[in-house]
């Protein structure tokens, strides 16, 4: 790049010298060459001043004129003031192939593998540190052991992530030099920061792992160790945020002059419209991903376990991994919704391609995968209830939950627009099925997604209650419970009321704005329901409060908004985005409030029986494996969607992809590639984990002195 700049500078300087000379020579040459003897004298002066002559032709070729692509109709040239047109630097996009293999395929596979390992490496430390803190605060060494085991896997995976990252960088610079030239031009300073953060992450990761046994014994040492873990997470999150800025810039470029690529503001390029939505979405998704991968690791260990103790340990580990995965899975659709909405804001065209165009069918596949995740998670929880004495009281709910979840899944899967033959269309009388078309629209899908989330949350509540018997009245639980409930109440009220107030100020035409009023009313009703639930809890009627809150939430966010969503779509489409956010706020408030009520309501409850860890059917472990495989596939699919939305652009609207691989592949091709990536990832992960365990003694699988048979509160309430 510097060489090019120097060359340009020299050219400009020499051009200046030539112009200076020409200013003396031209009056003579032009008057002889161009003008007839009768041409007015001012013409010669004019030419001398402008320093311009007519183009010369040699061998039929135009010299000194700009080039236009052959066969192209002439563009808007010369019709207006010419000097207004800026000189554009046109550099053709260059590509190389990877030993004759499709470059895009190579970059696709390497980047996706890198992303998957990175997701694991970034997600696992978050809960490793949380688990370590829980173990330290609770004085329970088995949490500490598990956190260390996670970190051991992490350090092995870290090197693989870094190697894949290096390979990806080489592939990009080698195969897409022009594109990477642009990216380097815009983001060069951030690349140095990235490298520094990478050092930080490497040092803290290895420091965190290798100092585990050294930094224990005293609280100060342990806190220092935990601080290392926190630092590791901060470095990791920083790394992810930087790379996200590069990826999101490609979708919603900012801070540059699109026509020339000139950088106006690197800050804007980094903080582009999609940066923060992707950051949040990936942060949550990484935790979810890490949780399910650890769950699968535990499942593999469980299935290969030789002793009851091993089985108990890995059953418990699998439960924790699954718990973390589910915990992150529940808010993930909300973050995904926000991201999708911002994609629309960044580019309506891209948004339409995503949900209404070429990529709309990928969301049917996504629905299948997410449906599998939710069904798997619930199934695992229900199976888990089998190892808890006292769970029989709640098993009657499972059949209803199955019905609800499968019904929601079916609605979610229903496409709005079925590809019909002419004959079929004639039979139906229109393009859409008269009945199923109502399940294919966004209003229906939003409603069922929220219902699935509520149902899964309910599954979790009955799971954690299975072991609980007689409760201590809330009024006798001391200050902690009251502060906890009150804090949750304030948080929920702030969320609901502030959004309701903000809806009063949205700028819409009066005839459209009337459709916002029901949303405001719904938010206030929910706020009242949250207050009522808190009030009833204080009055020792927490269960009634929870039931009321569930009923109000389902009534508003699912049933009413399902119906009202249709109204809005038909009469005031603009209001749909406010409706979705209202829906999210209402469901979130229910989850938060009911979870907090449940925690404090059952805090000192008598145990009905113990949890017999290890007493899980084999199919439960396959469910954990399924969850892991599905989340990996889902990540591959969503990576394809996010990247593919740019269609034939490297940088959307700025740098076009003119390579032979610029086309959008078919879904079946995508499926095969993502399938291959998943096989490669899982194979590599298995190998890396095997390497990590090579030096371990088998008896370490079970920490000495811990009884997995009756754990009661130690396991049930720790989460």
């Amino acid at each position, binding site marked *: 790049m510097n060489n090019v700049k120097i060359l340009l500078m020299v050219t400009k300087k020499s051009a200046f010298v030539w112009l200076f000379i020409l200013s003396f020579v031209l009056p003579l040459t032009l008057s002889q060459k161009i003008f007839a003897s009768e041409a007015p004298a001012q013409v010669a002066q004019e030419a001398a001043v402008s320093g311009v002559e007519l183009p010369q032709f040699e061998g039929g070729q135009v010299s000194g004129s700009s080039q236009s692509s052959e066969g192209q109709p002439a563009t808007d040239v*010369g019709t207006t003031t010419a000097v207004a047109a800026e000189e554009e630097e046109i550099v053709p996009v260059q590509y190389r192939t990877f030993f004759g293999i499709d470059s895009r395929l190579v970059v696709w596979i390497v980047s996706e593998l890198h992303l998957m390992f990175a997701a694991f490496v970034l997600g696992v430390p978050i809960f490793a540190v949380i688990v370590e803190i829980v173990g330290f605060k609770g004085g329970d060494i088995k949490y500490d052991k598990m956190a260390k085991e996670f970190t051991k896997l992490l350090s092995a995976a870290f090197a693989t992530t870094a190697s894949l990252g290096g390979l990806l960088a080489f592939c990009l610079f080698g195969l897409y030099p022009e594109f990477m030239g642009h990216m380097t031009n815009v983001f060069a300073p951030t690349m140095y920061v990235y490298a520094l953060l990478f050092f930080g992450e490497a040092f803290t990761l290895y420091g965190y792992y290798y100092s585990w046994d050294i930094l224990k014994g005293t609280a100060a040492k342990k806190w220092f160790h935990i601080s290392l873990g926190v630092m590791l997470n901060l470095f990791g999150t920083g790394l992810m945020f930087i790379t996200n800025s590069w990826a999101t810039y490609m979708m919603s470029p900012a801070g540059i002059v699109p026509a020339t690529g000139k950088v106006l503001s690197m800050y804007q390029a980094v903080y582009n419209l999609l940066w923060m939505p992707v950051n949040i979405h990936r942060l949550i998704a990484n935790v979810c991903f890490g949780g399910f991968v650890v769950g699968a690791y535990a499942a593999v260990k469980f299935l290969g376990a030789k002793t009851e103790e091993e089985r108990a340990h890995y059953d418990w580990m699998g439960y924790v991994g699954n718990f973390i995965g589910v915990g992150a899975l529940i808010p993930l659709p909300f973050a995904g919704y926000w991201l999708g909405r911002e994609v629309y804001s960044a580019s309506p065209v891209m948004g339409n391609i995503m949900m209404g165009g070429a990529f709309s069918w990928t969301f049917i*596949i996504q629905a299948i995968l997410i449906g599998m995740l939710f069904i798997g998670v619930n199934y695992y929880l229900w199976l888990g209830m089998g190892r808890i004495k006292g769970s029989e009281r709640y098993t009657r709910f499972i059949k209803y939950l199955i019905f609800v979840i499968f019904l929601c899944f079916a609605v979610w899967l229903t496409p709005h627009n079925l590809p019909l033959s002419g004959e079929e269309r004639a039979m139906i009388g229109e393009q859409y099925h008269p009945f199923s078309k109502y399940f294919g629209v966004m209003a229906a899908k939003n409603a069922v997604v929220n219902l699935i989330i509520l149902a899964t949350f309910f599954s979790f509540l009955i799971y954690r209650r299975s072991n609980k018997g007689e409760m201590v009245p809330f009024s006798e639980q001391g200050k902690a419970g009251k502060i906890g409930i009150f804090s949750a109440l304030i948080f929920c009220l702030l969320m609901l009321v502030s959004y309701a107030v903000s809806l009063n100020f949205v700028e819409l035409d009066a005839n*459209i704005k009337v459709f916002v009023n029901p949303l405001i009313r719904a938010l206030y009703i929910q706020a009242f329901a949250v207050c009522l639930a808190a009030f009833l809890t204080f009055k020792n009627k927490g269960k009634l409060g929870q039931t009321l809150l569930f009923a109000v939430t389902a009534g508003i966010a699912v049933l009413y908004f399902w119906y009202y969503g249709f109204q809005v779509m038909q009469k005031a489409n*603009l209001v749909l985005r406010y409706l979705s956010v209202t829906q999210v706020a209402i469901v979130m408030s229910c989850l938060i409030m009911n979870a907090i009520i449940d925690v404090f309501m059952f805090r000192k409850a008598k145990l009905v029986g113990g949890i017999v860890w290890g007493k899980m059917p084999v199919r439960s472990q396959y469910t954990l494996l399924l969850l892991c495989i599905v989340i990996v596939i889902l990540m591959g699919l969503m990576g394809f969607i996010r990247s593919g939305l740019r269609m034939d652009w490297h940088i959307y609207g700025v740098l076009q992809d003119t390579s032979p691989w610029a086309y959008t592949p078919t879904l079946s091709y995508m*499926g095969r590639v993502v399938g291959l990536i998943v096989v490669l990832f899982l194979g590599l992960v298995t190998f890396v984990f095997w390497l990590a365990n090579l030096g371990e003694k088998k008896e370490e699988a079970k920490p000495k002195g811990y009884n997995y048979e009756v754990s009661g509160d130690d396991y049930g309430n720790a989460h």
Partner: protein
Amino acid sequence: MNKSMLKITAFGIAVIGFYIYITIYVSGLSGTGGGETASGVSPEAGEKIFWGDGQCSTCHKIGTSGSATRGPDQEGLWARAEERAKELNMPTGLDYLVESIVEPEKYVVKGYDKIMPKVFDPPIMLSREKILAVLAFLQTLGGELDISAIMKYKDKIPEASKKKVKPWVAPIVVDAKEGENVFFDETRPVTCGKCHVVNGRGTKVGPDLTGIGAIQTPEYFLESILKPSAKIVKGYETMYVITSDGIPYNGLIKSETEEELVLLKEESGEIEEIVIPKSEVAEMKKQEVSIMPGNIGELLSVKDFYGIVSFLQSLK
């Protein structure tokens, strides 16, 4: 590998296989996808573009066709376009439709957001012809098709190109309008309009230059003016004729019958018509030299020269 690992591997492969099967199945279900190519300004081509390349259907539906609700339903569009044109003091519904495409944010239908992109800009980048075809299709939605009326709007629709083409820029400040004046100015030593017709104005000796800017590049104009013999348009080659009396003529054939040959001959900047009886033609052959004067560069100032090029460029 122990038995449990084999089972786990088989299970993993089965799940991934199921996923691949689903993608293959959905791929077949979703059909071909993507926009179909269409050409020509016709409602049929426009309809294909509406549902394909133009991506109009992702925001607009037409009655029961399509499902999009982000933009207004286009059923019976023409009647509404005429109505709005009246409200906005526009001559016809086409003016309204053209404005809606060229400047989509200027008038937004109540109840809808300002989300419509300029379809000639990246990333859609519809060509002018395709936009005209879409206009033709939209006109049929409740109206009567009038292609000639649509074509009148072609200059109002910006052209889009998928290739990055470096725009030609005259090296000095010029105005196409001034170039037009020079083109037809008969007081000058050379008048292009004496041999070329543009939009019915001028004399047809050389090729008609109406709309030439849409099909030729600036480089072509530069060359044609300064070196007219470099490329001669077919049918406009200079003929060299020698009569039986030995008199030579150079000129363009205006007409040719069995009895006579009518030649257009340039003489001191004027075009002269010469009629030669066929019986007196001793020899006739095509010349490689154009009848157009080769010294035009000497007869024009730099500003006038580039002004004419700009004017020709504007003839689209």
